[in-house]
């Protein structure tokens, strides 16, 4: 099972690399925010699987924090694009 965990963690990071391309070339800011939102979820997944692989429960807390607060970034960007923040 542990090989499966590390394979999944690395695969999610590879998918995150694909998303980095969109983050770099995205024609509008909204495209970049979409890529960033998905990228943070990929990072959460990768952390969770790496925690299961390494057998360290303390990495799970980092993943929970990332899952809870990465969406705040998306909401703030959405509000900023609508000009409701300024």
């Amino acid at each position, binding site marked *: *099972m542990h090989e*499966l*965990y590390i394979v*999944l963690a690395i*695969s*999610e990071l590879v*998918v995150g690399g*694909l*998303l980095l*391309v*969109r983050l770099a070339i995205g*024609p*509008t*800011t*909204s*495209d970049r*925010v*979409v*890529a960033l*939102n*998905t990228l943070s*979820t*990929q990072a*959460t*997944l990768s952390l*969770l*699987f790496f*925690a*299961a692989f390494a057998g360290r*429960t303390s990495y*799970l*807390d980092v*993943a*929970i924090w990332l*899952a*809870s607060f990465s*969406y705040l970034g*998306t*909401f703030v*960007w*959405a*509000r900023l*694009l*609508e*000009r409701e923040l300024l």
Partner: protein
Amino acid sequence: MREGLTIALCAVGLTFTLSGAIGILRMPDVYCRIQCSSKTITMGALPALLGLVVAEGPFTAYGGRVLVVVLLLAVVNPAASHALARAAYKVGVPMWAGTVADEPHEDEPVAAGSEWSEGSEGSDAAVPPAAGNRPEEV
């Protein structure tokens, strides 16, 4: 049995994650990319995490916290995608030329630039969708 279920769930999750990422790379405009992004999370991340829960058991140190993450992702991600799509539509990010429906603007003429149209940061300036994006009136 348990390992087989785990491997199947992780394979489903990885397949959908990969297809969603390719969709984010290849889709023509931001609205299609938002659709691919939310599919990546609901169909890609949740089955993979449920596979982890099946492998570790729901009441262990791993399974419980992973279930918390599953709940967070399932609740917050649709709201985030909705807020993002709404913001993109309000700012007037241009749609793909092949778009066939633009329901909020169907009755109006071309939307005038809003009050913040002068703040043209990047290419997110308030450009109303081109008239060619509308369906023909029948």
